[in-house]
């Protein structure tokens, strides 16, 4: 039992800066296998088990305020990817005092907004202009800023890369799901003679997020119970 308890700690140390030396036991092949396993775990945590939106309650405004059409979801997901990946990687490489880090992350995010906006404008001009303030606010997205401030500086590049990709995938999964449901709802209401874009109001986003968060919480509880049973 005690060895089982120690194992996850050693695995997480592997992905921390300077932790590889202390947790490096076994051959290169074993190490490589552990790295792959850990990376997959980090990615899956961002995508499902510790989803930044539904479980971490981060970056809610794009989902709640703008995630009501699939086009909006596509633009915001693309912008998330283009901004988050370089911001987190660069934050991980920079060695600056903790209190300066949030400002550096914000400046990086602002700089990376420019190529993200240009790309989104070029690929989906109508959807980008329809986003108005929500596209600009991606600079201050709390998923990007919190991962760049808290996670990236203490983890190795591979972990930061997988975490950024996982969080982007998790964000995209939630926003696409919410947008699909809201679009269906809007169409049903419109076809039955109701108001136009009925699913676009923020409260619909909050209510749907509540249901999605409950679903993930239920899955996590079942997973934990199955793991306990297996032990």
């Amino acid at each position, binding site marked *: 039992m005690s060895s089982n308890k120690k194992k996850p700690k050693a695995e997480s140390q592997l992905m921390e800066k300077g932790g590889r030396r202390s947790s490096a036991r076994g051959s290169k092949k074993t190490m490589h296998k552990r790295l792959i396993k850990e990376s997959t775990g980090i990615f899956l945590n961002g995508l499902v088990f510790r989803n930044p939106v539904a479980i971490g309650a981060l970056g809610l*405004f794009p989902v709640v305020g703008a995630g009501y059409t699939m086009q909006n979801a596509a633009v915001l997901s693309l912008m998330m990817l283009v901004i988050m990946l370089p911001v987190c990687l660069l934050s991980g490489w920079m060695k600056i005092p903790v209190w300066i880090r949030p400002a550096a992350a*914000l400046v990086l995010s602002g700089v990376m907004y420019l190529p993200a906006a240009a790309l989104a404008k070029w690929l989906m001009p109508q959807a980008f202009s329809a986003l108005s303030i*929500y596209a600009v*606010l991606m600079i*201050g997205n709390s998923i990007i800023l919190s991962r760049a401030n808290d996670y990236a500086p203490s983890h190795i590049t591979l972990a930061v890369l997988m975490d950024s990709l996982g969080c982007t995938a998790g964000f995209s999964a939630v926003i696409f799901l919410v947008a699909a449901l809201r679009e269906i709802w809007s169409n049903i209401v419109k076809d039955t003679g109701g108001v136009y874009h009925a699913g*676009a109001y923020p409260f619909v986003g*909050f209510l749907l997020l509540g*249901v999605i968060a409950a679903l993930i*919480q239920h899955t996590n509880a079942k997973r934990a119970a199955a793991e306990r049973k297996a032990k």
Partner: protein
Amino acid sequence: MAVQLFFYAILALTAQNVIFCGGVGFSRVLRAARRPKILLSYAGLLSAFTLISAWMGIALNQLVPGISPAAFYRPAIFAGCVAVVYLLAALLYRMFFAARYKRLEPVFSSSAINCIVLAMPFIQRVFRMTGWQITGYAIGTGAAFFTAALVLSHAMERLKNPDMPKAFQGLPSVFLYVGILSMALFGFAGGKLF
């Protein structure tokens, strides 16, 4: 002027509430609600930064008008300005109010760098607000942040009720609760904010 200031502050609390009607800054509200002991200081700091951001927005919108080719770079320039303001404020606090800074350190950066603060110049431009109007709006937004966090901090304990289905305990029920509150404020707005 005072009437405009008051009117726009009320507007920011009700019909144009960026938190409930726009969904902006909600993750910060949740974090503030989890720290009831420093909630007032957190909201005070956020209001101050929102006010500074609103005034910087006026200057920025005059320096870089929407029709100029440089308008595309405006969000990045503004992010840089907010970063500088945060650094100056943090430096000031570290030098002169070290004890207070230590107490507020966990929330200091998040009260300066968040979507509510970043949204101000764009709100001013979109709604074509004058100096007094955006000042009132910024004050009202700070009050709206405090009210939302206060309401949630009281609700959070009740939303852990063990009689509730396990899957809905905690954050899922917070989302549903906020959804219902947002629906109530939607009655004031009558439509989407942005």
